[in-house]
């Protein structure tokens, strides 16, 4: 029974919680709605239209956006694969072995890319590349992305690995399975949801990055965020809203998949 003066329901908190969601979503929804606005004037509603979407695919700037999109997607894909591999290997090393000296130091090292302010990472990486005379461009963006994606891939993977009890591999060891067999037929299938979830998060973190990319991209190479930033310097145009809406939907889709993967985990554990 809940008492009338129970702290579980405090008047006004529900309103603030709803307000919180309104604040978080209102600007995004407004941009999405206006991306379908037929009017050239940005704030007057001129009826529903897909003309701005047509423009980003076939208009004057279509080639620029397509190139930027290609760079963004290929970099995000490769950065996510490499960082997920590194994070996975580190997670097995940290979580799946017996306790060791320097375990906390290793965990701190892995979360370092989140701790250091983005602008500082950007400056340091730019200085590093220019000191070793590495040409700024596609490859330098990719390398920088791999580094800051590692913690985002590491977190879901290590959480997943932690939840797998060690009796599985002990039982397998008792039955004379070798390490390779244990890994392939027991651990990997159990870890898979965490790995996919880590990959998806790394992918969107790379896709979304602006500051570090803008420092290390050099001249002439653009990703979608840097192209968008370049365009809005002359004002927010409706085609940018259409492009933003597409990018927003991709991120939302990936987070949702990642969310359902971790939900599926919980259900399986309960059964």
């Amino acid at each position, binding site marked *: 029974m809940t008492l009338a003066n129970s702290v579980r329901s405090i008047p006004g908190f529900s309103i603030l919680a709803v307000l919180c969601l309104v604040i978080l979503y209102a600007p995004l929804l407004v941009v999405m709605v206006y991306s379908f606005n037929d009017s050239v004037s940005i704030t007057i509603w001129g009826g529903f239209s897909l003309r701005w979407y047509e423009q980003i695919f076939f208009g004057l700037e279509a080639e620029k956006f397509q190139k930027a999109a290609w760079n963004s997607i290929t970099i995000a894909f490769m950065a996510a694969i490499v960082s997920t591999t590194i994070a996975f290997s*580190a997670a097995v090393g940290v979580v799946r072995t017996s306790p060791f000296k320097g375990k906390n130091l290793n965990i701190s090292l892995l979360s370092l890319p989140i701790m250091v302010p983005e602008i500082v990472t950007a400056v340091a990486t730019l200085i590093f590349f220019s000191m070793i005379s590495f040409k700024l461009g596609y490859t330098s963006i990719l390398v920088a992305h791999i580094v800051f994606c*590692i913690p985002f891939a590491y977190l879901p993977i290590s959480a997943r690995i932690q939840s797998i009890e060690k009796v599985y591999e002990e039982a397998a060891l008792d039955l004379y399975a070798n390490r390779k067999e244990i890994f392939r037929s027991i651990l990997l299938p159990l870890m898979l949801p965490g790995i996919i979830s880590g990959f998806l998060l790394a992918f969107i973190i790379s896709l979304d990055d602006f500051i570090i990319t803008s420092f290390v991209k050099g001249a002439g190479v653009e990703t979608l965020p840097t192209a968008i930033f370049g365009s809005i310097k002359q004002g927010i145009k409706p085609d940018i809203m259409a492009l933003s809406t597409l990018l927003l939907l991709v991120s939302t889709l990936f987070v949702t998949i990642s969310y359902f993967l971790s939900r599926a985990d919980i259900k399986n554990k309960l059964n």
Partner: protein
Amino acid sequence: MTQVYKQKRAFDSLRIWLLLPSWVTIGIFLLIPVGLMLVISFMTKEFRGGVIWELSLAAYDQFLFDRGLFGDEPPTIQWTYIVIFLRSIVQAAIATFFCLLIGFPTAFFIATRDSRNRTFWIFLVTVPYWVNLLIRTVSLKFLIRDNGPINEFMISLGLISEPLGLINTNLAVQLGLFYSYLPFMVLPIYASVERFNFTFSEAAADLYADKWSTLRRIVLPIVAPGIAAGCILVFIPSLGAFLAPDLLGGAKNFMIGSLIEEQFKGNAGNWPFGAAASMILLTMVLIALMLYTRQQAKSELT
């Protein structure tokens, strides 16, 4: 003490090889660059960007003192950069305060729902975090600018006769930081309230304590570490933020992030000075993190 039977785990002998890739990647592409940045901050600037390899304290000196146009006048305190740093701290603190104001009730409300609704609410709060920060900031700019939807709407209702003039003000930057990092406040507070054992508060309720004093005297002290975590997660990225001050604040409301960026863009840059400013920012962040870990360790002991 009981003797624990220590069985070697299957992957123990491989540990070094498993950890090596992360050491190498983060070491070469993050630790070494930060070290290099420290070195550069003590070098002499070259005029078209880049550095001359001569030891110099000029970057730090320029930060604090004004020695006139030709550097030969007696030094006076240079307030420009100190003010930018102080402004960044104040802006980040105000944004953190507003995040706490909305974030705590939200987190508390979510944590007291049943478990099905809880995960759904948390999902809704998390999604905006994963959406491109640039797009979110641009959206906010679109919403609050002088001829944007909010102003047009309020004018059409007759609530105001001219635009509020929000854009390019300190308030706009605070709003931007608040909007950028609000999810960071909700998540850790939610986690600590969710672990809170409500039988404590039920006991207080049995003894006729009203809601507010139960919240203040029973719940708050126990969930304090979550609140501290939320504040640090909002404060730190706000301090070095670039997009919100750049897009919403305009030239008068410069913060550390924009100051640093300016040193590396175009020909007017000054790499050692930018490196020094980055080092100062990094040091501030590390101090904040250290204070936070010490506080957390202390509260775990008591």
